[in-house]
């Protein structure tokens, strides 16, 4: 688990760039991963945390239907948007 390596803002930027998630800001950031016009996964990102607490990090991974390892890879770059889409399609 690489929660200590990332700031919550890194997660937000990664989700915006790779997964095209649009976030609404409030006390926390909320956004949906959409696939073919349907709401698939909804992630909540608390504002301004580094390191990201472990259970929160795991919860964010789970919300995106990823394992912690896959989430690490998503944030670390090797897991791109297309691969993420394939992983999701396998689960539908």
């Amino acid at each position, binding site marked *: 688990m690489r929660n200590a390596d990332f700031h919550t803002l890194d997660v937000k930027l990664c989700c915006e760039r790779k997964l095209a998630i649009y976030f609404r800001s*409030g006390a926390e950031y909320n956004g949906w991963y959409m696939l073919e016009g349907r709401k698939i996964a909804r992630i909540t990102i608390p504002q301004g945390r580094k390191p990201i607490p472990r259970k929160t990090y795991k919860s964010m991974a789970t919300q995106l239907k990823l394992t912690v390892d896959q989430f690490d890879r998503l944030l670390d770059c090797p897991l791109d948007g297309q691969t993420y889409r394939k992983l999701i399609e396998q689960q539908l």
Partner: protein
Amino acid sequence: MSQPPARFIDYLDPDRMRTVQIREDYHLALRSVNFTRGFALGYGYANVTGMPLAVPISALKSRLLPSPLLVIVEPDDDGFIARNPDLPLYGYGDDCIEAIDALKIEIETLYTDLLEDDNLTEEWAMVRKLLHKMIAPRS
């Protein structure tokens, strides 16, 4: 608003549930030194031993819940995380109260999101149905 009687898991004796009457809003109960015994012990466990705390809530920020919703609050590094096992949501905060409040907002915003349209997977449609049962209609 008076609170219904609540039951708490006693983590020193997990087979036992304590039934307590919360005399104030739970925010005040958590902060007050005039705790009912069950609440005080539960809050202590969450801080001291790292054990989860089960807190029934009977209202969101702006909506009522017809039946109390059980929220599990656990320490998460320097803060706290609040969750309900049936919902794909969490609330994070520097203390228990902030975490529960964040979860309340999460539940409300998710419900609003799910009512926006019908472009949902089966899983989210089920969550919407569940929330519909959990949340009282606006009067």
